[in-house]
């Protein structure tokens, strides 16, 4: 299985990432997930979320998750991009793509990777309040 992991302070350009996908002969289903910063956090309005990470460990933990996903499901490719730094409301903080022969495994693997990421990948957030 092909895998790409990118943890970056650059803005995430989902359409450009999607356009850069290599097509494979066993590809029948592509699932993209985009996590977008919402305008409120625990009921309070926010302007942005500031993400920080222990980057080498975050990369290593993502690699382990993607390796495990490849053992669990017949996947063609998984790509993950997580943004760090200040991500404003409405902008994506996470982009993921899972490619597989059939849709069930693409959906299952994509959800599983996100759920596990939220358990083990050392990335933290801090709400940036709206300045009146």
């Amino acid at each position, binding site marked *: 299985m092909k895998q790409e992991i990118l943890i970056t302070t650059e803005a995430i350009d989902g359409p450009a990432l999607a356009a850069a996908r290599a097509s494979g002969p066993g590809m029948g289903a592509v699932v993209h997930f985009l996590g977008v910063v919402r305008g409120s956090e625990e009921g309070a309005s926010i302007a942005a979320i500031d993400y920080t990470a222990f980057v080498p460990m975050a990369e290593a933990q993502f690699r382990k998750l993607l390796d495990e996903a490849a053992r669990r499901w017949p996947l063609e490719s998984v790509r993950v991009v997580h943004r760090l730094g200040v991500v404003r409301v409405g902008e994506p903080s996470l982009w993921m793509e899972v490619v597989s022969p059939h849709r069930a495994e693409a959906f299952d693997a994509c959800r599983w990777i996100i759920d596990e*990421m*939220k*358990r083990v990948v050392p990335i*933290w957030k801090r709400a940036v309040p709206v300045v009146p």
Partner: protein
Amino acid sequence: MTVEVTFWSYFADLAGAASGKFDVPVGTSVEELLGSVYRSHPRLSALRNSTLVAVGVEYQGGSYLLQPGDAVSLFPPVQGG
């Protein structure tokens, strides 16, 4: 040996530093090291039940025995996505 302990996210605020150095014997367990950390940084000890520990880039439990060169990280629950 000297073990460098890095505090991530708001643990750095609570510790008042991004990292600290601790002198411990070779083979000290993570649990014993945490005892030293909490004596130096008592505000972190209140969060011990939700503290995650890594050695290098892997999670480790309290029974892990530290070796020269090991770098330890302490951090709160992760929040990516």
